[in-house]
């Protein structure tokens, strides 16, 4: 799955969890500042990412994934790692 596709999927999950238009958010915009997403919604979003892409985000990254770009990059890296 390419990065563009991953980003689009992440945006769709944000739309579902936070009930906002994920397509209108910049790749590097802070989701907490931009959307007012609190820690609870953030966790629900990351859980949705894990479920959608069938992977486990490293625990140490859970407190740092505040932008669509960071989430998509990490998902891409984890997918590449599992493919190789």
């Amino acid at each position: 799955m390419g990065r563009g596709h991953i980003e689009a999927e992440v945006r769709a999950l944000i739309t579902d969890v936070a009930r906002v238009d994920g397509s209108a958010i910049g790749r590097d915009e802070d989701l907490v500042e931009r959307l007012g997403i609190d820690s609870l919604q953030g966790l629900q979003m990351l859980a949705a990412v894990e479920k959608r892409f069938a992977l486990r985000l490293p625990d140490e990254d859970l407190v740092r994934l505040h932008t669509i770009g960071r989430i998509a990059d990490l998902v891409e890296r984890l997918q590449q790692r599992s493919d190789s």
Partner: protein
Amino acid sequence: MKIGLIAMSGVRVRNAELASLGVTLPQFVSRGKVVASLPSLGLLTVAGLTPPGCDVHYREVAEISREDPLEPFDLVGISSFTAQIGEAYQLADRYRAMGVPVVLGGLHVSLMPDEAAAHADSIVLYGAEGAWPRLVDDFGRGRLQPRYEGLRAGVFERPHYAVPRFDLLAGRPYNRVTVQTSRGCPLNCEFCAASLRITSSYQQKPVDAAIAEIRAALAVRATSFLELADDNTFVNKKWGKAFLRAIAPLGIRWFTETDISIADDEELLDLLADSGCRQVLVGLESPDADGLDGLDPRNWKKARAGRYLEAIDRIQSRGISVNGCFIVGLDTHTPAVFEAVSDFVSRSGLLEVQVTVQTPFPNTPLYHRLAREGRLLEERPWDRCTLFDVTYRPKHMTVEELEGGLRWLFGQLYNEREFVKRKRHYMEIVKATMSRLV
């Protein structure tokens, strides 16, 4: 008539060591930030009760400079919790020195009316319902009275009830909206200084009125997260189920405070999850039954302590996180309580934890008992009523042991390893219930 309603918002800790700890402990500050960033629903309700024709302005104290001239109003209303009451009095004194009449109201004023009256032209006791419209009318006629008593019952019944003026929040950066569905709590815990002190009995808003308010609040805020400003939402399970069925179609996410008895009702839990409830804050107070002895008149909490872990699991298994609240320094507590809370939290899988120090708020049963026993460190330690500063001598430990134990417990609970562990546990629950949640 131009009326300024000023909220004394913000949460402060006086103990310098705890304050500095808070800067580096994300979960400790997160709930504090949420609370500090919520608008004053009480003053929005006062605005809603204001007779038509008045020009009402909502302000927060952070917007008011200590040096610059104050914004002119014909009448000023100030509401404050205990910890900020000193600043509220200073602001009131500044306005009165300008010749602007000041009305003080809110929980602290209702508990300490004579003290507040020294800084105000008029005070409002209990709810604003039944008092504020009369006060504004009297003021317009030049016959403002020094004291008004609002309703303690029937506050949600017409003609006294009014929808809060959520429109006054337009353009303000809150990420949550707040709506109240109930006032008071039947548990009547000794330490409580919440809305039960201004009500004569538990008051609950009719479901249709609550839903209409939520719609009104959401209409002016670009957010889908709602916080119910209740002290115990689901006392009446029949009302609760009707409310949950009515709020579900709104498609929002929301938070509230309630008691642990919701775990006893499977149907209620399912409705909670389906309605968009994402977190409940529950006052567990102490990790075991012995610690809860005598906390409430009926020992209601003590009777349920043995089932706390099972109850938390049942609630969280629906994807609803529990914010578990503990109070340290109760008269049943020895220095062993800090490790006991830490162990309980570790075993419980609680996503969020809030630990506070027992605080004798003014005119509560706890305050009077500690005063009788000569255990208050100061007679009026209002600026230290922050829930984190010690204001009395604990029964089975020293003040220093309580302060040190709290610091140790914060370090145990709010370090990144524990923080991530709790997050991971919650995410696994969310994934298991994902079809329901997303």
